[in-house]
């Protein structure tokens, strides 16, 4: 099992979510994060006084998937999150040792 963490643009969330469901994933978790990378924060101007917003709002998607699905999920995200402009985001793959469904106590791939 792997955890796939993707940092994406907010406006792309719905599209990606739909595509992932089509691709067969059964669950995912998202959270609001802020980031910077190539895309730096922007400057906001209030009454002419400039405030540097250091970070850009992003969405972090977390998905734990069986090894067999990793490739497909990555491809789906790559395709749907793409706009071609800086700030499109990143995908990280992290090993997961165990997964358990609280409701049924199932473990491993059955749990996710």
């Amino acid at each position: 099992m792997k955890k796939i963490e993707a940092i994406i643009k907010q406006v792309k969330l719905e599209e990606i979510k739909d595509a992932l469901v089509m691709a067969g994933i059964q669950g995912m978790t998202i959270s609001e994060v802020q980031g910077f990378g190539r895309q730096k924060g922007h400057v906001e101007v209030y009454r002419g006084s400039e405030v540097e917003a250091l970070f850009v709002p992003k969405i972090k998607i977390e998905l734990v998937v069986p090894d067999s699905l990793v490739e497909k999920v990555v491809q789906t995200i790559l395709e749907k999150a793409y706009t071609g402009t800086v700030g499109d985001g990143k995908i990280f793959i992290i090993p997961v040792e165990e997964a358990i469904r609280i409701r049924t106590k199932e473990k491993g791939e059955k749990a996710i």
Partner: protein
Amino acid sequence: MKKKFMEQILNFLAFSWMMVLVYSTDVLADQGSQPKLDTGDTAWMLISSALVMFMTIPGLALFYGGLAKKKDVLNTIAMSFVAYCIVSLLWVAYGYSLSFSGDIKGMIGNFDKILLKDIRIDSLQGTIPEVLFCMYQLTFAGITVALISGAYIERIKFSAWIIFSVLWMSLVYIPVAHWVWGGGFLSKLGALDFAGGTVVHVNAGIAALVGALILGKRKKNYLLPNNLTLVVIGSGILWFGWFGFNGGSAVASNGLAAQAFLNTNLACAVAALAWMFTEWMITKKPTLLGIASGIVAGLVAITPAAGFVNVFGSIIIGILAGSLSFFSVTAMKSKLGYDDALDVFGIHGVAGIIGAILTGVFADPSINELGKGLLYGNPNQVLIQILAVLITIVYTALMTGIIFLVIRLFMKIRVSDEEETTGLDSTQHGEKAYNF
């Protein structure tokens, strides 16, 4: 050159002294031989008093609170609240008496009406109960002190602010109010100030600037409004309440009140548009904060003029207030580099001065026979206006500085750096605004 100018000014002073063109006494004279309570005038002044109170609590408190950083919202709001409460007590205790009872050498009133002593339930001021006149004036004192807080937020200790409020109200507001409205020397000069452009806005604006300089810059000296919807509510309440501020200054329910009302609405709307379009041209986006700021600038600028000018004057005042205030808070502030956190000087000070001077230009005797401006053949009026503004500026700047220095003798005025970073809500009050 300079000397000649001063001489000229002194001439006017002497001349005007004789004219005794005092607005307030005239109003009294109007009543004829037998002053009688008028229920309509009284009703309008009752509601006007409520409206002006509403401007501070919660109007101004929200306007300022919404502009503060998330960690300083409650402290910013509390400063307006506590200022108004303190003034409410002290005004009744001695403020009204020292401002409006008698006159000692044109400088200050006397102690005859301490704790409203001798004001009976049927004492009149013109056609309204005197106790109501006292109440109405109280609300003006309250908002003036609260206004200043906008420049000091995010760094001043709450206890220091409380002491400042007491001293500033006593040593600055009361005398200036006496000079202009209580029969003091400025009222005898012939300066036109319908609803308090000089006493309230120039006064507060200068105190804001001087205090901001003494306090020094915040560590993060930029504007990061935590909640613009509060600013929207605040600006709406300010606009609403200002009808009582300017309309009520007619101290009667009549055509003059109506004209002041309409002028207020007009100048304010025009200033909002002026700020918005100026900003649109210069920074490419018309912000809602710009519209709200323009609203306040317009309201401030029309304050001294509301009961003197016609709609044409109001429109010009609106345009200049909106656009010039925009430049003052953007270009000027960043050049001069003082940290007037919420632009009290930039908006109230600047628009207040603009309004005071333009009143001398546009005052139309067909609106109010007591005021005749440059455009109607009385160029002196402009100079009188400038003089009144200058006197206020000098006195306020000086006294505000002294007050700060005195407080500093006894306590620290600024919070510690760590408290500033953590936020004043938590360090001064132990609260946070939102538990979402």
